[in-house]
């Protein structure tokens, strides 16, 4: 299979606000993500994980280098789940999802089914302010899947939730993913989450960032969050990052 997301020779620097010093974050960074594959990026804070995600999303531009997003290029359908739900609080749950799916040309026929599947059938016409944090994030997940994404970007999607809610939503994410697997990139600080969801974990480190290790997770799906192999992966990544 060919790569659907390909970073090649990506360079990105930031100018420090207080000192004016230029700090390279990414230099000659390469990474291929196969079609239908979910890659997790892990590593210390500030290593450039979110920058990579934002480059795919078109929210940041690399200083140089290329980012390819498959045969449809820039018009590939990209769904994203952020750390915060980022819903329009003044629109109903249904309208929030409809807005994204209509913009992607997918129509609104699937919205209610999707919200039912995600456990929010009773809240279709509610405003997001009436929902709990976990429910709001469910809406954000429904919105991302409503466009039938070719590429799905997950920016620490469960890190603002309590552990029990986060675990439920990870399982939900796995179910949704398995129905029609998009190509995905997950940024997380939670190694267990990375091991549970991803096909491949890319461990980043250093400044500018380089790939310290690539760990393939060859466990069959659906996975169980209690599988001992996941904890083994967790220990391995922690060992790599503690050096």
């Amino acid at each position, binding site marked *: 299979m060919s790569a659907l997301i390909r970073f090649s020779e990506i360079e990105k620097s930031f100018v420090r606000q207080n000192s004016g010093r230029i700090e390279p974050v990414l230099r000659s960074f390469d990474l291929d993500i196969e079609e239908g594959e979910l890659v997790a990026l892990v590593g210390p804070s500030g290593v450039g994980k979110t920058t990579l995600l934002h480059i795919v*999303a*078109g*929210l940041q531009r690399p200083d140089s280098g290329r980012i390819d997003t498959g045969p449809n290029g820039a018009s590939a359908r*990209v*769904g*994203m789940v*952020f750390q*915060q739900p*980022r819903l*329009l*609080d*003044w*629109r109903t749950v249904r*309208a929030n999802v409809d*807005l*994204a799916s*209509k*913009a*992607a040309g997918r129509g609104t026929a699937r919205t209610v089914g999707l919200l039912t599947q995600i456990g929010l059938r*009773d809240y279709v016409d509610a*405003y*997001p*302010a*009436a929902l709990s944090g976990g429910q709001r994030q469910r809406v954000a997940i429904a*919105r991302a899947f409503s*466009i039938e994404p070719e590429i799905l*970007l997950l920016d620490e999607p469960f890190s603002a939730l309590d552990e029990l809610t986060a675990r439920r939503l990870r399982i939900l994410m796995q179910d949704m993913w398995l129905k029609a697997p998009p190509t995905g990139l997950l940024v997380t600080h939670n190694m267990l989450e990375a091991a549970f969801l991803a096909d491949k974990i890319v461990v980043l480190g250093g400044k500018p960032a380089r790939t310290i290790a690539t760990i393939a997770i060859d466990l069959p799906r659906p996975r169980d969050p209690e599988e001992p192999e996941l904890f083994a992966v967790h220990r391995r990544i922690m060992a790599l990052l503690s050096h």
Partner: protein
Amino acid sequence: MADTIQVESAKGRHDKGAATASALRRLAGLWLPSIAFCVCLLGFWEVMARATASPLVPNVGEVLGEVRRLVVGGFAFRQIGITLGRILAGFSVAFVISLGVGIGAARSVMFRRFCDPAIILGLTVPGLVWALLCVIWFGVGLTTPIVAIALGIGPVMVLHVLQGMKAVDSEIVEMAHVFRLSTRDKLIHIWIPSLIPHLIGGARVGLSLGWKVIVLVELFGLSNGVGYQLNSEFSSQNVAGVLAWTIVFWAVMVVIEYGVLQSLERASSKWRRVSEL
């Protein structure tokens, strides 16, 4: 959900009389403070009028008699209609222009810097000056009130629009970018909803400032409207008449505030969670 059901059943236990009583209490809470203010004002005025015992300070009865004279037969309402029409015309022009300028200034720093001196100039120049200049330049047509009001309230409304634009959540804008919302969708579903509370605030200030400008325009250059009537009462040294016109216009503004602006505000904020504190 469980909480909601409990609340409903607690409500169910009340009998009809108690429900009426609580509705009355709610209404009283809504209106009593404002009524109390009006009573205080009337009392204070009456005391002052009796203490000074001067023809320059007419008592409450005289002023109310004057109000009745103006209102019966609808003369006051025709004049207020004329004045309100002028305010609304000038306000509409100012609204459209300040929306455009405000959005432009929020999106482009250069344009913002270009506009800054104009805004400060506009905030500095008294409405009186705009009124005089417009009467001199445009004469007694409809142009004069519209231009004078637009100049008088435009700068303040631009500031409100700018503030509203700053209030648009950049995280939501990013979300809209990733999900490729069209410009039209962004406008309808993100920009305008974020702007609306600030536009209502701008409208409130704009309407009240517009009133202060139009009165001067009517006084200097026009032959009808509340400003003209105020001036003619002043010329005939009828203090009660001046007060009566002010009171009648105040009443109309109260109706606009409660009837229009606050309803708009409620309609645009029904999604907000109400804190129980």
